[in-house]
């Protein structure tokens, strides 16, 4: 058996451990995804015509002013998308609605086949 080298392994382990800890702390495994956001001004009439307006309130949903449950609303939109795949949908959240709910609604509408979903600003509450 050959003689051990003069350099011992302990400093190597030290360095490797430090590198390991660095990579463990600095890497993230959470991959981000994105959602394209689009917003229409509530005043601009041109882009709004023919669009379906979904009002997202704290405890209810309204489609073009009619109070509906989420399932009924999604089914109605789904039926509409079957006839007109490029039907525009506008979402108007009420103040106090968390962003997660708005994103969920977009997801559900997209799952029904909605291709053109955008937000509308404006605080006008009826």
């Amino acid at each position: 058996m050959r003689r051990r080298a003069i350099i011992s392994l302990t400093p190597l382990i030290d360095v490797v451990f430090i590198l390991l800890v660095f990579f463990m702390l600095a890497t993230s495994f959470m991959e981000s995804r994105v959602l394209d956001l689009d917003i229409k001004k509530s005043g601009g009439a041109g882009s709004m015509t023919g669009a379906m307006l979904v009002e997202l309130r704290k405890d209810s949903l309204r489609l073009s002013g009619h109070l509906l449950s989420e399932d009924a609303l999604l089914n109605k939109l789904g039926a509409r998308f079957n006839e007109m795949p490029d039907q525009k949908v506008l979402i108007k959240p009420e103040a106090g609605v968390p962003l997660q709910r708005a994103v969920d609604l977009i997801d559900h509408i997209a799952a029904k086949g909605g291709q053109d979903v955008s937000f509308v600003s404006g605080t006008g509450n009826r």
Partner: protein
Amino acid sequence: MAFGKPHRRPPDEDQRVLPLINVVFLLLIFFMVAGQLTKTDPVKILPPESFSEKDPGESQVHILMTADGDILINGENVAPTDLTPLLVNLIQNREKKTVHLKADGNTDATKVLALLEKIKAAGADTVKLLTSEKIPP
């Protein structure tokens, strides 16, 4: 190497730590290859979950919005009054006018929309809302 044979003298220090080094090296390589080094946000933000599978792509303008509605642009806190001039300044000179917006899932949606309007007004072509992956049921 004579495995199995009884050692006449106890193995020296180096040989005892070799398996340890093997494991640590493997872990190190795993973290280097599998993880991605990302800049951590100066504030805690939990982006909304979404089924969207779009890749974020590149962007030079990163805007953060905390659950309380505070706004940070490229890591620095911005007062609401300075927002528009700063945005215009940042966006106008870029070739690709893409903005990444990372907002907390609990932020008031109307606040996000107000910010979105300002970003669009400042000249951004596309605004991408960062989301985290949601596993389909």
